[in-house]
């Protein structure tokens, strides 16, 4: 308890606990006991609690005296004194504070009292004044009542009079306006008066005014209409005119028509200007052209008026390029069309929607008319543009066309914005699409003709130095123009011709692709149309341009085979060979290169099925094969022809003993050698069947006298069947059937084999049709031996040559009246001498 006291006392100087306790004490002092607090503090019941309400000093003192020592008492006493002192000072402070407050409150109250008194006086004064004012006011209003009523009435009469005056003056005013051409003012004046006049029209005077006004307004309307009809006015005037007329209750439909027809006449003059720029048709086509013009202008308001004018028009500048033309079309026609559309919409549609006209379905009507009008004119414009585009035949500069189309398309977008539901932009896009496809077609035909021209060049180049082939110093006389000019200096050898041909074709394709690529350039408005993104790339460029060109190359190659077949080699064989190599190169690399190039450039997304590379390659290979086969055939036939003539024109029964190899055979060998060189320039060697290192020796062994003798001996014996047996035995030896005009492989040996086969087979068949004398047979023997000596090296399987030559000698022995073969050694001597 004491320690508690001590603690409290010690810390009592400034803590909040102390202040609260002080408050509590003060409260207690003033009897402001908080209810409930008592019961909560049971210790306060303790009489020894010095702070409690039940404190009993006696009891406390007794308790202290009983319990504490002197020293403690002393301490207690000092503590107590200290506490009492501090409590006193607290008390004093409080009292002082309260006192001060009380003083100031008293001051305030006193001051207030004074002020209120002053205010009361003023209020009294005010109420007195108010009473006086009220009194005055009442008296004034009483006096003015009468006059006021009069004034009101007068002013009413005044306005009425003014209105009447307006009405009476209206005709004059209107007339004046009319004179001054202030139509807008006139109309607005009339509008203001109209209702009134209408309302009071039963009064004769008003009726007269109304009639006058009507007359004037009619005149005005007439004048406006006249102005409208004249058409010399500017678009702005015109629209104003229309606006006024609309306000005058003119039938909107008629106005629309008039407006449009007026606009039409102006647009038509633009169109005629455009038409005049289109190059006049060639004389032969003039009739058609004028008919066409008539039909195109048939939709116009006055075709009879138009057509003579157009046909009479000279063609001042037929050579304006397409960009200029389109520019002019855009600047003149399209922009005035846009202007017409805007002002029309402004007048008849937007305006009407707000005004009272909206109820009459005028916007719809007007809109319909506008669409029909725009469609009609645009169709004519488009037909002109298309005609102009069709005249763009030259494929030189595609960028001009693309730019023109772009501008054309871009400007139509304005129409699209103005006229959301219109089909015009779509049609414009269609025209662009058509122009693009047409262009692609033109490029295709340009490529094709380029190809054909190149072939003609090659043909010339082949024809000219052909004379100097043997000399090998070909002067390159074949003047090559265009892409083949590079071959001018160097001798026109086949590989060079081939490479320059294929390079120039490839370059041409690349440049065409580049030109066509302009259609899909990013900055071209129509390039993001779905057509140009998809179909144009895949169907247009890839299929109808590139694929078709490749097909054309193959096809034209095939045509060389077919047409030349009957006329007997109108195509130089070297060209066939060259083309065959070209097609083969196409098959191996060029086609896939071109198509990859195309696909890369155009980012073709194939929605529709496209020709796969393999098909084209197969086609090219087929063409190459056909060409090579044809080459073999043609060359074979040339040699065959020599052999055939040599066999057919000779009297083999009465011929002299052979002393020489016939010149024809030397010629055959020569030609074969030069063909071999020619083919070797373009095709690889190819594979031969393995043969012994010393083939020429073996050659003799085949012709060894023993075997030959055996065969001829067989002919002497009466048992003819043995001979046929022998023949069939030989056949069995070469059980593989020899196809004479069969397909050859793409190598030199195979080609040469084919040619030699054809030649020798012809020789054989011709021999079988003749009858030989002894020396005839011997001559054939010599010739065959000579051929044997030289031809084996060209073929893949020399046995083939042996076999065929055997057959020839055998057959001629059969066809011999006196078969006495020549000694092998003599044959050899003759051949070596030759």
């Amino acid at each position: 308890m004491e320690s508690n006291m001590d603690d409290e006392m010690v810390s009592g100087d400034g803590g909040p606990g102390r202040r609260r306790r002080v408050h509590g004490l003060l409260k207690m002092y003033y009897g402001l006991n908080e209810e409930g607090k008592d019961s909560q503090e049971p210790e306060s019941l303790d009489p020894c609690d010095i702070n409690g309400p039940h404190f009993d000093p006696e009891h406390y003192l007794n308790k202290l005296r009983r319990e504490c020592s002197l020293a403690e008492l002393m301490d207690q006493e000092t503590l107590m004194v200290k506490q009492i002192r501090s409590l006193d000072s607290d008390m004093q402070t409080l009292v002082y504070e309260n006192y001060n407050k009380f003083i100031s409150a008293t001051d305030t109250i006193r001051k207030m009292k004074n002020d209120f008194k002053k205010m009361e006086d003023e209020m009294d004064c005010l109420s007195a004044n108010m009473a006086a004012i009220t009194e005055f006011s009442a008296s004034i209003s009483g006096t003015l009542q009468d006059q006021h009523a009069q004034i009101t009435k007068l002013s009413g009469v005044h306005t009425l009079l003014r209105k009447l005056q307006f009405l009476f003056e209206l005709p004059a005013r209107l007339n004046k306006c009319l004179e001054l051409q202030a139509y807008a003012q006139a109309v607005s004046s009339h509008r203001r008066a109209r209702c009134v006049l209408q309302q009071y029209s039963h009064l004769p005077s008003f009726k007269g005014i109304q009639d006058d006004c009507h007359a004037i307004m009619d005149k005005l309307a007439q004048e406006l209409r006249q102005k409208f009809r004249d058409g010399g006015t500017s678009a702005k005037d015109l629209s104003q005119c229309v606006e006024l007329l609309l306000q005058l209750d003119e039938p909107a439909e008629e106005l629309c028509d008039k407006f449009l027809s007026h606009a039409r006449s102006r647009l038509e003059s633009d169109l005629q200007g455009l038409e005049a720029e289109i190059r006049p048709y060639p004389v032969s086509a003039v009739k058609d052209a004028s008919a066409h013009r008539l039909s195109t202008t048939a939709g116009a308001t006055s075709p009879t008026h138009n057509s003579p004018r157009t046909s009479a028009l000279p063609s001042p500048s037929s050579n304006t390029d397409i960009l200029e033309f389109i520019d002019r079309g855009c600047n003149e026609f399209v922009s005035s069309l846009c202007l017409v559309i805007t002002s029309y919409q402004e007048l008849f549609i937007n305006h009407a929607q707000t005004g009272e006209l909206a109820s009459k379905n005028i916007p719809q009507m007007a809109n319909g008319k506008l669409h029909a009008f725009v469609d009609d004119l645009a169709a004519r414009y488009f037909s002109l543009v298309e005609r102009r585009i069709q005249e763009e035949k030259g494929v030189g500069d595609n960028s001009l066309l693309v730019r023109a189309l772009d501008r054309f398309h871009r400007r139509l977008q304005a129409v699209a914005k103005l006229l959301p539901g219109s089909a015009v932009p779509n049609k414009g896009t269609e025209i662009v699409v058509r122009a693009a496809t047409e262009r692609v077609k033109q490029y295709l035909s340009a490529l094709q003709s380029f190809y054909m021209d190149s072939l003609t060049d090659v043909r010339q180049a082949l024809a000219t130095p052909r004379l100097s082939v043997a000399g090998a110093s070909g002067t390159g006389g074949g003047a090559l123009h265009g892409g083949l000019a590079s071959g001018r200096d160097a001798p026109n050898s086949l590989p060079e011709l081939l490479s320059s041909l294929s390079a120039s074709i490839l370059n041409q394709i690349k440049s065409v692709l580049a030109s066509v690529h302009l259609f899909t350039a990013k900055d071209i408005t129509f390039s993001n149309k779905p057509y140009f993104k998809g179909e144009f790339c895949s169907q247009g460029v890839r299929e109808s341009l590139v694929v078709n060109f490749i097909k054309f190359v193959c096809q034209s190659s095939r045509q060389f085979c077919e047409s030349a077949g009957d006329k007997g080699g109108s195509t130089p064989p070297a060209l066939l060979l060259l083309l065959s190599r070209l097609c083969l190169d196409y098959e191996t690399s060029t086609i896939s290169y071109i198509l990859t190039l195309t696909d890369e450039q155009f980012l073709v997304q194939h929605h529709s099925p496209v020709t796969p590379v393999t098909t084209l390659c197969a086609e090219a290979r087929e063409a190459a094969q056909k060409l090579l086969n044809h080459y073999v055939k043609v060359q074979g036939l040339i040699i065959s022809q020599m052999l055939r003539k040599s066999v057919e024109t000779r009297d083999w029964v009465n011929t002299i003993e052979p002393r020489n190899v016939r010149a024809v055979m030397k010629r055959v060998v020569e030609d074969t050698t030069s063909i071999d060189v020619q083919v070797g320039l373009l095709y690889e060697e190819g594979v031969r069947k393995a043969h012994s290192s010393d083939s020429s020796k073996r050659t003799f062994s085949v012709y060894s006298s023993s075997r030959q003798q055996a065969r001829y001996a067989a002919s002497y014996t009466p048992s003819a069947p043995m001979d046929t047996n022998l023949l069939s035995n030989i056949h069995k030896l070469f059980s593989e059937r020899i196809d004479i005009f069969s397909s050859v492989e793409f190598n030199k040996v195979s080609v040469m084999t084919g040619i030699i086969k054809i030649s020798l087979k012809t020789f054989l068949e011709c021999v079988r049709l003749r009858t030989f004398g002894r020396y005839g047979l011997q001559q054939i023997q010599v010739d065959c031996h000579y051929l044997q000596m030289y031809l084996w090296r060209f073929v893949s399987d020399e046995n083939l040559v042996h076999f065929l030559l055997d057959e020839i000698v055998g057959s001629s022995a059969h066809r011999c009246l006196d078969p006495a073969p020549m000694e092998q050694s003599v044959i050899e001597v003759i051949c070596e001498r030759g």
Partner: protein
Amino acid sequence: MEDDAPVIYGLEFQARALTSQTAETDAIRFLVGTQSLKFDNQIHIIDFDDENNIINKNVLLHQAGEIWHIGASPADKAVLTTCYNKTSDSRVVSCAAVWRMPTDWDTGSHESPDDTAHNPQTLELLCHLDDSAHGNAACVLWEPMGDGKHVISLADNHALVWDLQESSTQAKVSSTATLEGKGQLKFISGKWSPHHNCSQLATANDTAIRGWDLRTMSQIYCIENAHGQLVRDLDFNPNRQYYLASCGDDCKVKFWDVRNVQEPVKTLEEHSHWVWSVRYNHSHDQLVLTASSDSRLILSNMVSISSEPFGHLVDDDELSDGDDNHQDDKSKEPLKDSVVSTYEEHEDSVYAAEWSSADPWLFASLSYDGRLVINRVPRALKYRILL
């Protein structure tokens, strides 16, 4: 299956000339002429027994020379013509003659079928068709379906119409036509048209085909450059009067409409060497037989230019009761021209092929080594054409 297997017959000599015995309509009979410079040449009469698949042969001697062409009279079974080469004084001359087969060749062969060679009978010469002024004979043509009184021989650049009198023992030139032009022109072959009352002839020389009117002996049409090389043979479509087939050294077979000779109606390029013979089937002209020196024989079904391009029209109705759809499919199918079959039994150049005059489904071909092969039209095709 067995029936379709080819029947092969070997001659001892080389041979080029083959004909069917035109007047014989019951037995299947072919005549073959041999080519030998050293021995007596023969005419082999090949009888084919269809039921037993057996060949019976009879040999007649043709001592005059090697036979290049043979023709059987359409009226008299026993009469035939040959073109042959005769050598005299180291000169080779081509001649033509009318012959009669001995009447008893048939009986003789039956008695000793094995050794006919030992004792062959000889042909009886009726008359020579020679006119020394007209050069070497290339072929002799009988008037088709005629009475066996008229023949045409082609000799060098002349076409001679002969009247055979006194039962063919005398021949008289009734009219001639001459091919005129630069160089040495020579007829290679020809064909007497069975149409227009047998008043037309077609000939081949070099690369051209010419038509002749026999009444005036003047040229009526000319197909220049019909083939790239020599034209070897011709045949008329037996049912379509203006259609003509030709073949030649350019390995092609071409079909012509002689009213428009600018372009062939159709071209076949199946052979890999010269085509020596082309023959229309006598009854079903879609079947065309071609023989070539590539040792092959090709049977083509040229439906699109035949006289029955849509098949047998009557049969659609007849067969419509059965399974209709199936029949419909079948009737549309044969519209395509196609190679029916390629026959590779020969091992040397095939110079001649002929249809039998008795059995339209049977044909023979002859290669240079003397091998005669008798084949039939494949049964499936036969039924499709018939049904």
